[in-house]
Each structure stands twice: as structure tokens, then as C-alpha cells.
């Protein structure tokens, strides 16, 4: 369908302005000296008041990182990153994490503008979360500025705090689990993160506890030339359940910013972790200028029998997305799930997917991935499903569909399916198509304009995934999808 002039104009006007979180908060901040060296690592560690073992851990990672090479196998291309030209630590000047009233009002305002209430009474009034209670850990550049509902959570025995605090207060838990799912040497970006991570969330749900509310972290990159390296560690002890949400935004800048996070999930016997992400980093302008480079390592370990880890992600932002949330299905009868919607527009490049590694008996996994490419973007699904020799009765179903809007974008599927066990049953299907003219015609005949029609059809296309999102997020995600695709009809 050729684009009419009207649409072209609309794309022009919308493409640049559609990112509504592109504002910048002007506050004083404290930074580490620019560049990366052992001193930077020591600086961050000292800032966080970390024990000696943690510093050693970081330094070892840093030394290892220096011997590594940046991976180039993903289907993304970007100018070389100068790791010496970044700030690895940036924190708002006022002391944080004391009480809500000590937080710089500017930051509070920022989060309010983003729709994230940090004042518990606001949250109770249901300002942004549709009436449900959600505990929030707000991470601003390199530090966590507020964590809400801590007390209520601790009554249930749930530990929810910034990881820097957890290192001090619960060293035994951190020592036991940190780096046990994503080893320090896992990959280039994970190793970098291990050396310089500054904050993130730590969650521990004790035996048999069902976490009384949704937990969430909201990441905001604010400062110029700053990389964000957060580290999240979630442990669900035997029979525990936790649902965790993650959201991200960044100001609109014409330089590229680096975001290299590591998320580790550990589910012990009968535990369940549900991890949902709505990623909306600044994607760059229509010519591909600026935007976040998102290199994230996320992995869950179903360590106990009958445990379950479920990843749901809605990816609409970032100039570059390099992200493969994975499940190691170690316990017998454990389950892994991955639901993903990845939308790319403009010059965005997405290379995302999952890994399901079946080690235990009767493990099962399900992958539903929906990629939507518009504009001049490239959208790749890259996934691995593997069954090891002892994974008797492993079961996987994979469905990855791609939708192309416009003829300048690309959609790619690169699945790896490796079965080493005869009783493993793997099924994989993938399709790529465009929105059919029939569907469009049907909608338009009923009075919808082409953009509404497209949004409606796309919503139907991604429905399977949206249904997996917690309610508060589903609404947000649905809105995002229509924003992200505005102006892409043609």
C-alpha cells in the first residue's frame, strides 16, 4: 500500500515527538570521574560502602572484562562504544533512601510525571496503578532513590530493597545467590555490569510466602553521558510466589547512552516468579540519532522441582535491544515461559529472544514471541531451545510471528533447536506476514481510519502476550503499542 502524502506528513510530525518521556530533570548530581579503570570500580564500591569481598568480586570481574571482546554475532550494527567516554556512576546530590520527604522534590516530580507515585499515600489513592497496591523501587541513574511499602512487605517477611543496601544488610543471601545464575564471566556486558553495577533491586521471598503485592522497579536514566548498570536479584524460596514489574525511560538526547543490566532470578522448589518488563527507553529520532543501547542479560534458574519462571516483555524503546531473558529448567517438572512483544520503528534495531535450557525431567517451556517491524527498523527473534541428555520428557512449544509494516523494515527469525533426548518433544513455528488487505478493508469498511484499523489488528496480533501482563501494565502496554506504531501505516 503506497503511503499517501498525509501519512508521510504524519510520520514526520509524530516520529520525533511521540516519545513523551523525553524530558530531562535538572538536578545537581555527583558523578564518578569519566572513564573506566580499577579506580572507577573502587570508587563505586566505596560510594556504596561495600564490604571487602564485594570489592574483590567487582575487581575480578573488571580484570576479566579487560580480556574480553565485544560480541558481534547479533544482527545489530552500531558505532563502536567508547567505554572510556562514559560516566559509570551518577547520583543525585541529596541523600536518598531516608524518608520520602528527604528526596529531592525535583526527582519526586520526575517520577510523578512518569506516572510512578513514590508517596505511599498517593499510591494508596490509586493515582497510577488503577487501585492496586504496587511497591516501587525507583532507580534514578545509578542509585535507588526510594523504595515504597517496605514496612508492609517486611511484615510478610519479604525483603525488598536496593541491592546496595542488601549487600550490607543481608550479605549471606547476596553472597549465596549473586552471580549464581549469570556468572561473572558470562558475557561481555554481564561482566562489565558485574564490575560497575551501582544499584538495582533485591527481592527475597521466604518459604511459602505469597508476596502480598506486586513489586516493581522503575529505571530512569537522566544524566548525560551516563551508563546505567543495574543489577536485580530475585529469590523465591520454596513455595513462594512473587510478581515483579520493571519499567524504563530516559530523556531524549542525541547521543547514545549505554544500559547494561543483569537480572538474576532464582526459584527454589514449588516457587514461582513472574517477571514483566515494559521497556520504553528513548529509541532515538527518526534518523537513528541518539537513543539507548540496551544490552541486557536476564536469566532465571528454576533450581527446585516444580518451580516456574515466567518472563513477559513489551519492548518498544531503545535504539538497540540485545536481550535474551532465559530460563534454566534445572528442577524436575519445572516450567519456563517467555511472552514477548517487540516493536521497532524508525531506525531501531531489535535482536531479542529467549533461551530455554531443559536439564530436569518433564520440564516444559513455552515461547510466544511477536515481533512488529515498521519504519526502517530491523527486528530479529533469536532463541535457543535445548534439551540435555537427562531431560527426559522435556516439552517445548515455540511460536514466533513477525509482522511487517512498510517495505523498508526487516523481520528475521533465528531459532536454534537442539534436542539431545529422544523423549523430548519440541515444536517450533514461525510466520512472517503483513497486515492483510482483507483485514484492513474489513475494518475500514466499518469506519475506522487506517491507523485505528492497524492498531486494532496489531492489538489482536499481540493479544496472546498482552494477556500475560499484570493488569496495570497491560493498559500501559496497549497504549505504548499504539503510540509506537503511530505514523507507520503505509
Amino acid at each position, binding site marked *: 500500500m503506497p503511503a499517501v502524502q498525509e501519512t508521510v506528513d504524519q510520520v514526520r510530525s509524530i516520529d520525533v515527538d511521540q516519545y513523551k518521556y523525553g524530558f530531562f530533570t535538572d538536578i545537581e548530581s555527583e558523578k564518578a570521574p569519566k572513564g573506566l579503570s580499577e579506580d572507577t570500580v573502587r570508587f563505586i564500591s566505596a560510594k556504596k560502602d561495600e564490604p571487602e569481598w564485594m570489592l574483590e568480586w567487582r575487581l575480578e570481574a573488571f580484570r576479566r572484562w579487560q*580480556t*574480553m*571482546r*565485544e*560480541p558481534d*554475532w547479533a544482527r545489530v550494527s552500531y558505532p563502536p562504544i567508547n567505554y572510556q567516554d562514559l560516566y559509570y556512576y551518577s547520583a543525585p546530590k541529596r541523600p536518598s533512601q531516608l524518608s520520602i520527604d528527604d528526596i529531592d522534590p525535583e526527582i519526586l516530580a520526575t517520577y510523578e510525571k512518569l506516572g510512578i507515585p513514590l508517596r505511599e499515600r498517593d499510591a494508596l489513592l490509586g493515582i497510577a496503578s488503577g487501585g492496586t497496591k504496587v511497591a516501587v523501587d525507583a532507580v534514578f541513574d545509578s542509585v535507588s532513590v526510594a523504595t515504597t511499602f517496605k514496612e508492609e512487605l517486611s511484615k510478610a517477611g519479604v525483603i525488598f530493597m536496593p541491592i546496595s543496601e542488601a549487600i550490607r544488610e543481608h550479605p549471606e543471601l547476596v553472597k549465596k545467590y549473586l552471580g549464581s545464575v549469570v556468572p561473572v*564471566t*558470562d*558475557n*561481555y556486558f554481564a561482566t562489565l555490569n558485574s564490575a560497575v553495577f551501582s544499584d538495582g533491586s533485591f527481592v527475597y521471598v521466604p518459604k511459602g510466602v505469597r508476596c502480598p503485592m506486586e513489586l516493581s522497579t522503575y529505571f530512569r536514566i537522566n544524566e548525560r553521558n551516563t551508563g546505567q548498570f543495574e543489577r536485580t536479584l530475585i529469590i523465591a524460596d520454596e513455595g513462594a510466589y512473587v510478581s515483579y514489574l520493571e519499567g524504563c525511560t530516559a530523556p531524549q538526547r542525541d547521543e547514545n547512552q549505554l544500559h547494561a543490566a543483569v537480572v538474576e532470578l532464582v526459584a527454589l522448589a514449588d516457587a514461582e516468579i513472574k517477571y514483566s518488563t515494559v521497556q520504553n527507553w528513548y529509541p532515538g529520532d527518526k534518523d537513528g540519532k541518539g537513543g539507548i543501547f540496551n544490552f541486557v542479560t536476564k536469566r532465571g534458574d528454576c533450581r527446585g522441582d516444580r518451580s516456574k519462571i515466567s518472563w513477559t516483555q513489551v519492548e518498544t524503546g531503545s535504539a538497540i535491544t540485545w536481550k535474551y531473558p532465559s530460563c534454566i529448567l534445572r528442577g524436575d517438572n519445572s516450567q519456563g515461559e517467555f511472552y514477548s512483544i517487540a516493536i521497532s520503528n524508525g531506525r531501531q534495531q531489535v535482536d531479542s529472544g529467549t533461551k530455554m535450557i531443559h536439564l530436569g525431567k518433564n520440564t516444559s517451556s513455552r515461547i510466544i514471541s511477536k515481533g512488529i517491524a515498521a519504519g526502517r527498523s530491523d527486528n530479529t527473534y533469536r532463541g535457543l531451545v535445548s534439551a540435555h*541428555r537427562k531431560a527426559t520428557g522435556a516439552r517445548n512449544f515455540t511460536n514466533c510471528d*513477525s509482522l*511487517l*509494516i*512498510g*517495505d*523498508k*523494515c*526487516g*523481520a*528475521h*527469525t*533465528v*531459532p*536454534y*533447536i*537442539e*534436542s*539431545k*533426548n*529422544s*523423549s*523430548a*518433544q*519440541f*515444536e*517450533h*513455528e*514461525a*510466520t*512472517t*506476514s*503483513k497486515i492483510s488487505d482483507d483485514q484492513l478493508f474489513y475494518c475500514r469498511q466499518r469506519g475506522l481510519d487506517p491507523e485505528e484499523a492497524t492498531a486494532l489488528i496489531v492489538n489482536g496480533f499481540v493479544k496472546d502476550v498482552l494477556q500475560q501482563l499484570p493488569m496495570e501494565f497491560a493498559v500501559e502496554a496497549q497504549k505504548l503499542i499504539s503510540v509506537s506504531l503511530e505514523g507507520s501505516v503505509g
Partner: protein
Amino acid sequence: MNAEIRPIRTPAEQGLSGELKALSRAGGPRIAALREAAAQAFHDNGLPHRRVEEWKYTDLRTLMREALPLATPAPVAQVEAHQSLLLDTGLRRIVVANGVVVPELSDLADLEPGLSILPLAQALAGGSEALARLGALQPGRYDAALALNTALATDGVVIEIAEGAQIARPVHVAHVVSGQRPAASFARSLVVVGAGAHFTYAESFEGPAGLAYQVNSATEFVVGDEAHLDVVRLQEDSASALHLSTLLFEIGRAAKVHAFSFGIGAGVARTTLYASLEGEDSQVGFNGAFLLKGRQHADATLFLDHQVPGCESRELFKTVLDDSARGVFQGKIVVRQAAQKTDGRMMSRALVLGDDAEMDNKPELEIFADDVQCGHGATCGAIDDDLLFYLRARGIPLKDAQSLLVQAFVGEAIETVEHEGLREALVERAEAWLAARG
């Protein structure tokens, strides 16, 4: 994990480099330059290993332990002894033994009008118009098997079908390895099908059981507009042999191409197929069936390049794995921006019978055009218990029930072979394989 690795040269690489020092000069400067470029590429890149994406599951650096001496022509009487294993379905047979055409055993007389068959060595020595096509198809990436073949193959078959010629009798090129000592043989063939012509080409591979020889074969197909080409391949090399073959297709407008690969032989087999769809409205079908047992390893890798609008491609690969065999399927469909209205479907199905068997599937799509219908699927699993139960409930013993189901499974792919005689020969091979399973 991501540290820089500069591999040392393996004995096989060193041996091959030695052989690449003295290249044949036959065929004029263009061919000589091709050989030199291929030798240089091999010198620069060596054998592929698991970090080379296209060879991820077939690590040739490990699997090819040594470079065998180049095979020498075999005595006719010795080659003749193999004939019991050749296809015999009224085909015109050309025998290529140890990489060299054996005219005494080849049916080169009374060629139908429009059909021309010439040994490559003869074409290189005497010059042939078709030679201008040789080596013209390049996969656009370094391929060790093809590079070695380009540099070292000196004989094979050059077949030309004139425009509009309808050749009813298929031509069968039988690649035979003969001799007591393990050796490496290389053969290169070229098949040019003129516009509107119809042709069926078969090739088979076999050699002495138990002999650890190496075979490297490459065949280029140039298919003209509205031509119709059927290719049937039967690979039953010795279970100790290393088999590398490359197929290259250049396909014109509104052509119909169908290729079927059947593999039950070789210890390590790799078949790479490159197809470039260069004319609109063509239909291609690339199918295969592999029956593997013991410690056999078979890799089928496909690259399909849709460059123009309106083409249709279908792939169906079936792999049966017994004991601790390993099957690999990698298929990549590329749809270029211009290739609107492409319809592509790729399917790989594996049936795992052996407890230690392994299947690796990598079906890829790379799509740059929006108005397309493309899909791929991959499945892998054991025989369905319900189906087995159904048959056993009707008094069929377990083994027979399994055989029936495997036959049906493989049969779906074999059914796509158009030539009846060849299709039956393949079905027979599959039945024999199942019977031997006991």
C-alpha cells in the same frame, strides 16, 4: 568466552594446503584464477569450526582429522564391481569413479537431440561454451567445502540441455569411490538447462563399506526461463566416509525446480544448497530425507535467496535418528526488499528413535519485504505413543508398528519425487534401512 582465538592449523589444514600448492592449469585463465582465489580463501580461513555460524553443528575442524591423499583413477574392472549398488531404472548412466569420468562404463552414445554431455576434464582441455558458466555461481560467503572443490576438482560432468528440449530419460551421474586405501576425491559438475527445457538429473554416491574415504562434490545448476528441472540425489557412502557436497542453483523466470536429497550413508555428511531465485514467478521445492544410525552425522544446510517478486518455495526435510546419530538442519530463507509476494514455507521434522540421538534445527527467516507470506516450522520428538498404541491394539508387533510409522513419516518427503522409477528406488532404500534395523 569472547576472548580472541587464533586457531593453530590442524594436520588436515596443513595437508590440504600442501595439496593446494600445485593447482591444475586446465581450462584457461578464468578457471585458473577461480582455482587460485579458492585456494587463497582456504589458506586464509581454513576449515570451519563451531564458531563459524554456518558450520556451528558440523565442526569440520574436529570432524576432518586428516587430509587424505588425492584419489587416483581406479581400474575399470574394479569400478564395475560396485555396479550392483547403482540405480537401475532405465536411466542414462555416467560413472564418475574417484572423481574421474569412466567413459567405458558411461552411456554417452545416442544422446537425444538437445542433450549434450561432456566430461569436465574434456571440456577444460578442449574448451566448451558452457564453461563460461562454471564457477559463476558464488554463495557470497566463504564456504570451505566449495573452495576446496573449486581448487582441486579436475573432472565431473558438463550437461547442457538445449532450449525447449524435453529429455524424458533422466541422466544419472554415479559417483563411486573405488580402492583399498582411503583417499580424497573431488568432482565438479555443471548442468545448464535451456529455456523451456525439461530435464531430470540424478546423482548417487557410494564406496567400499568400512573405508574411511573423503568425497567432495559440487554441482552447479543454471535453470533457464520456464524450464523444468528435477534433481534426485542418493547418498549411500560408507559409514566411515566423510561426504561433503554443495549444490548451487541459479533459477530464471517461471521455472520449476525440484530437488530431493536422500541420505543414509557416510559417517559425516554435509550437504549445502544455495539457491538464487533470479526470475519472477518461479516455483522451487527442496526436500530431503535422512535415515541415520550408529554414530552417523548428517547436516543439511540451505540458503534460499528470493531476489525477485512472486516466487514460491517449499522445503520439507525429514530426519530419522536411531542409536546415537546426530541430525542437523539449517535453513535460511532470505527475502529481499524487491521480492514482494514471495510465498515461502520451510519445514524440518525429526523423529528420534535412539536414546542418545541428537537433532539440531535452525530454520531462519530474513525478511526485508512486507507483502510476503513466509513461515517455517521445526519439530523433533519420539514416535507418538498414541499412534503406536493404535497399531498395537490391532495386533501389529511393536517393531512392525514402528517401521510402519517411520515409513509413513519418511514417505511424505519421498512422495515429492516425480520420477516413478527413482521414487520407488528411494522407497526401497528406506525399507531396506528399516529392515536392517531389525
